[in-house]
C-alpha cells in the first residue's frame, strides 16, 4: 500500500525536531563571564530586578569583570528546601534566618554564617503592617482588632511562608510587649488566625486574594509590599501601623559548598557586600525596604514611619527556638488550628 503522507510527515517531524534542538543549543551558549544564582524569597522580585544590574555595573567598574546574576523566587522555606536538594545557589537572600539555618544543618554552609557580615548578615529589614480597605471601615488600629468576631484577615500560610510566620510572631510579641502573659498572647493569636478565610502559599498570593479577589477586611504583609500593592491595584487601601510589630531581618549568605566548587566565591561575596553599599541601600529604600544606613532611613523618613519594633531574638530567643516551639508539627500553631 502506498502511503505518500508518511514520508513527508516524518520529514517534517525530523525537521521540526532539528529546529527545536538548534534553538535549545543556541540558548545554552554561555553568557560571558561568571554567572551567579541568587535564590531569594517571594516578595523580593522587584528589588533584585534593580539590584542585579546595579551590581553588574559596580562590579565591572571595580574589577573589570563581567558577572551575571540569575534569580529564583518562591516561598522562603520552599527555596531553602530546593537549595538543600541541590539547587545550585551561589547566594541566598532570605527573609528569615531559620531557613538559612536549615541549609547550614544540611552542611552546605558553616553554622556561624550569620557572624560573617554585619547586622547579623541582614542588610535590610522590614516590618509587618496591616493593610485595610480605604477609609478603614472596621476601624482596625492594632492587633487585637484583628481578633474581633466578624473581622476577616488574610494571612499567608505560616507553615510555608516567612510572611505568615512573621505575622504570627508579630501578633504574639506585641501582646507580650504590652504586658500580656504567654497564655493571653496565645489566645490573641488563636482568635486572629480563626479569622483567616484562606491560607495562601505565598505573600504575593495572599495579596492577590485580598486586593484582587476582595477577600478579607485586612491583610497582614510586609511594609515593603504596600507601595507595590497601591501601584498595582489602585489607591483603595490604607496602611495601619500597629502599636508594636516585629522587625523582620532579611539575612543573606554565601553557600560555601557551591561557590567553592564553582570558583565563584569572590563574586558571590562581592555581591553580598554590595548589598550594604549606598547604592544598594538606596535601591532598597526606594522599594520601601528599610535599609541599615541611618542617613538613608532619615532621608526616606516619610516611607518609614517610626514604629516600636522587637526582634525575634528579643521576644522568642531566636528563630530556631521559635520554630521548635511554635511552627513544628504538633507545636503551638498546629494546636491553635486544631482547636479552631
Amino acid at each position, binding site marked *: 500500500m502506498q502511503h505518500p503522507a508518511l514520508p513527508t510527515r516524518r520529514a517534517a517531524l525530523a525537521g521540526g525536531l532539528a529546529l527545536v534542538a538548534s*534553538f535549545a543549543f543556541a540558548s545554552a551558549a554561555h553568557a560571558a563571564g561568571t554567572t551567579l544564582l541568587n535564590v531569594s524569597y517571594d516578595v523580593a522580585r522587584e528589588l533584585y530586578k534593580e539590584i542585579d544590574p546595579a551590581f553588574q555595573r559596580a562590579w565591572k567598574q571595580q574589577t573589570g569583570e563581567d558577572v551575571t546574576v540569575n534569580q529564583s523566587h518562591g516561598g522562603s522555606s520552599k527555596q531553602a528546601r530546593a537549595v538543600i536538594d541541590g539547587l545550585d545557589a551561589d547566594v541566598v537572600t532570605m527573609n528569615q534566618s531559620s531557613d538559612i539555618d536549615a541549609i547550614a544543618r544540611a552542611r552546605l554552609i558553616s553554622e556561624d554564617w550569620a557572624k560573617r557580615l554585619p547586622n547579623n548578615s541582614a542588610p535590610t529589614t522590614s516590618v509587618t503592617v496591616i493593610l485595610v480597605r480605604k477609609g478603614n471601615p472596621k476601624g482596625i488600629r492594632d492587633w487585637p482588632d484583628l481578633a474581633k468576631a466578624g473581622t476577616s484577615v488574610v494571612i499567608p500560610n505560616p507553615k510555608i511562608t516567612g510572611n505568615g510566620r512573621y505575622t504570627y510572631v508579630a501578633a504574639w510579641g506585641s501582646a507580650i510587649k504590652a504586658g500580656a502573659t504567654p497564655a493571653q498572647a496565645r489566645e490573641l493569636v488563636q482568635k486572629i488566625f480563626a479569622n483567616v478565610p484562606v491560607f495562601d502559599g505565598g505573600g504575593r498570593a495572599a495579596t492577590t486574594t485580598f486586593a484582587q479577589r476582595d477577600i478579607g477586611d485586612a491583610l497582614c504583609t510586609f511594609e515593603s509590599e504596600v507601595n507595590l500593592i497601591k501601584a498595582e491595584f489602585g489607591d483603595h487601601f490604607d496602611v495601619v501601623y500597629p502599636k508594636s510589630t516585629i522587625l523582620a531581618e532579611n539575612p543573606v549568605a554565601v553557600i560555601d559548598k557551591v561557590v567553592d566548587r564553582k570558583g565563584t566565591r569572590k563574586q558571590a561575596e562581592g555581591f553580598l557586600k554590595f548589598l550594604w553599599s549606598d547604592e544598594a541601600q538606596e535601591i532598597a529604600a526606594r522599594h520601601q525596604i528599610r535599609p541599615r544606613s541611618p542617613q538613608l532611613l532619615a532621608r526616606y523618613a516619610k516611607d518609614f514611619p517610626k514604629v516600636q519594633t522587637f526582634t525575634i531574638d528579643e521576644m522568642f530567643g531566636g528563630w530556631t527556638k521559635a520554630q521548635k516551639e511554635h511552627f513544628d508539627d504538633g507545636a503551638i500553631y498546629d494546636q491553635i488550628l486544631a482547636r479552631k
Partner: protein
Amino acid sequence: MSAAAAVVAAPPHVAAVPPRVSEATTEPAWVRRSLIAVALVFLTLFLFVPLVAVFAEALKKGLDVYLAAIVEPDALSAIRLTLVAAAISVPLNCAFGVAAAWAIAKFDFRGKNLLLTLIDLPFSVSPVIAGLIFVLVFGLQGWLGGWLRDHDLKIIFALPGIVIATIFITFPFVARELIPLMQAQGVEQEEAARVLGASGWQIFRRVTLPNVRWALLYGVILCNARAMGEFGAVSVVSGHIRGQTNTMPLHIEILYNEYQFAAAFAVASLLAGLALLTLALKVVVERRVAAQAEVTRR
C-alpha cells in the same frame, strides 16, 4: 485493556449523525429541549466560560500588553523550554509506546496483565508525588545526588529533571492509544509478511505502522498537549530560575504572583490556543480514521 486506555483510546469515535428514528423511541419535544438545556448549562458553567475567561482576561489591558507579555525575554525562554521539554519527551514516549504495543499486542506472554497495569500507573499518580520521587532519586540528599554532584551533572533543577518529570507524566499516552488497536488488528498480516520473507523492521515499517498511523498520531498529539501543560510535577523539580528553568505553566504562575494578571492570562491563552488546536487536530484525525474504516468496510 484497562479502562484508562478506553478513555484515552476511545476517540477516535465519530460524532455520528443520529439515525432517523421512529416516534416510539424518541422523547417528547419538551423532554428533548430540557435535556439539551441542562447539558448546555452544565457545559457552559464548567467548560465554555472558563475557556472564554482565559482570552478575555488576557486581552483586558489591550492588545499591546498582550503582545508585550509574550515577547518578553522570560516568557520567550519559558516558551523555548516548554518546546524543548516536549520535543524530547514526546518522541521518547512514542518510541516506548510503539515498543510496548508491539510486545503486548503481537505476543502472548506471562505477566502481560501486570505489565499493562504498571504502564497505567502514572495516570493515577498525583503530579506532586511524581515530582517528589525524582527529587528523592536525583536530589542532593537523594540516592544519586552525591555522585551527580561529584561529576558536575545537573538533573534536578535543570532541564534533564524537567524532561524526566514530563516523561513520567505523559508516559502511558502513546502506548495506551496503540495497544487496543493493535490487539484488535491481530497478527495475521504480520505473520503473512513474515512468511513472505520480510525482516522484523520491514514488517514493522510496511505492515504495522501504516495500520496504526492515525492512532499513533492521536497518541502523540495528546502526549504533546499534556507535556506542554504539565504544572505540578515540573513545579517540584524546576528550581524556578527565571529565564532558565521555568516552563510556560510555571511562568504563568510567576506572572500571577507578580500581580501581572493580564500577562499571566496572555501566556495562558497561548496554551489554551494550543489546547484548541489539539482538539481541532483530533477532529481531523477522527475523520481520517472513519474514512479509512469506510474504505476497509467496502
